[in-house]
């Protein structure tokens, strides 16, 4: 069972910033190249990156450089290229923070063709 | 120096050498990180230096850490599908070690012109160089040359335009 509940997924294309900021997980919308279109409050606080510093920049290469590899960004690029992306895996963030274990879900909403990165804490 | 623990004794999850095919890039990287040859190179490199017991122990720990780091990388990338990603990672590691060696070399040479040479720094530079040599055979000579030249070029241009202007008055 995914840490991203079905209500969030169903609401995705029309999710408002207020709704995103109310979520208890990280929600990041990115374009097909990885540029951030929406960076929610939870993610901003976890990463200690202000929303205004994140939005417009590339999630994988600039904001979260520890994701810039085949394990993470590679999966995203493959999914975008195939037009289908829904994968969940464990990961650890370490860039300018203490090791932080997380669960990740990379998701491309089929009808709106929008891309989402979901992040939630994970016990070690 | 506090109690020195070998990575081999520290309870680290040791990579499994028998899962690495010796003729794969990961297998060759594993072999490059074997502690025995690195230890031999280190012993030869520092034999003429006047180092204290503590400094020698520190160098040995440094060599052991590098051995562990090389083999941890080999183990992480041991799947056949990882090999295309392993080569640039080795290139990056090589450049990292090159900067390590270069820094010791620079400090050693500046120190030599201004004050008593530092055998500790000479020793570290020698060990860095020896370990660097273990990785070099995994990369093409052209890539090594081009990468180091490019990095040097980048570093030559790091001074901001305003660096001196802001401080000359």
């Amino acid at each position, binding site marked *: 069972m995914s840490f991203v509940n079905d209500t969030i997924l169903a609401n995705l294309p029309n999710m408002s910033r207020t709704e995103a900021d109310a979520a208890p997980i990280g929600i990041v919308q990115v374009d097909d190249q990885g540029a951030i279109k929406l960076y929610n409050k939870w993610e901003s606080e976890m990463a200690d990156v202000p929303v205004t510093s994140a939005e417009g920049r590339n999630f994988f290469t600039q904001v979260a450089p520890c994701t810039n590899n085949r394990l993470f960004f590679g999966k995203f690029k493959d999914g975008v290229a195939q037009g289908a992306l829904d994968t969940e895996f464990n990961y650890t963030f*370490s860039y300018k923070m203490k090791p932080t274990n997380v669960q990740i879900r990379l998701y491309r909403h089929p009808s709106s063709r929008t891309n989402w990165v979901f992040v939630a804490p994970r016990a070690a | 120096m506090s109690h020195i623990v070998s990575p081999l004794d520290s309870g680290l999850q040791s990579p499994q050498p028998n899962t690495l095919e010796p003729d794969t890039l990961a297998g060759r990287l594993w072999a490059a990180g074997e502690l025995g040859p690195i230890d031999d190179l280190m012993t030869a490199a520092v034999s003429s230096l006047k180092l204290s017991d503590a400094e020698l122990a520190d160098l040995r720990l440094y060599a052991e850490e590098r051995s562990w780091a090389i083999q941890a990388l080999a183990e992480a990338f041991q799947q056949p599908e990882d090999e295309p990603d392993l080569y640039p990672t080795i290139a*990056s590691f090589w450049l*990292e070690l090159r900067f390590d060696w270069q820094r010791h070399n620079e400090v050693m040479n*500046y120190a030599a012109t201004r004050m008593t040479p530092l055998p500790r720094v000479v020793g570290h530079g020698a060990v860095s160089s020896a370990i660097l*040599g273990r990785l070099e055979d995994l990369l093409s*000579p052209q890539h090594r040359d081009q990468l180091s030249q490019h990095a040097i070029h980048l570093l030559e241009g790091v001074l901001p335009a305003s660096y001196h202007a802001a401080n000359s008055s």
Partner: protein
Amino acid sequence: MMVSASRLAALVRDPEFADTVLAHGAAAAVSPEDMSRLTAYASRRRSAILDVCDALGAEGDEDDFYRTLAAVWLELRFEWQRYNLVSNYGTVRHGFSSPLPLALASASSALMAQVESLLDDAALARLAEFAAQLIEGTHGLLSSEPAQDPHASGRVCCRAEE
């Protein structure tokens, strides 16, 4: 603002410099034996930076000092990238990672952050881009097959055994 060797030396001598490394170790739940290795890592990094400050701290060395500091940052950046990959390959492939690579990844990035506070943002962005492209394999220097040239070596000089 010109970066002075004395300013960097003061930053590195501050107990917080080493404490930062050890705090990352504690957060990664490393064993007591590995904590001693982290302590040795912090000590080695501290000594290395102080050596640079001592060697290149004289008047007239400012440009070389700045470039060497940038090289130290790049070295830390490569180190962080490497430990990040090692720990996350473990996590993704096996569901877990050894604590020590995790701790070293966090520690090296924390040290990187301390050093980069003294460097120019634009230069750092160029260096970071180079480091990221290199490890991705997307940098142009690695994207083509090299010709066999026995005369090009790129080998370091001044090896002790030569």
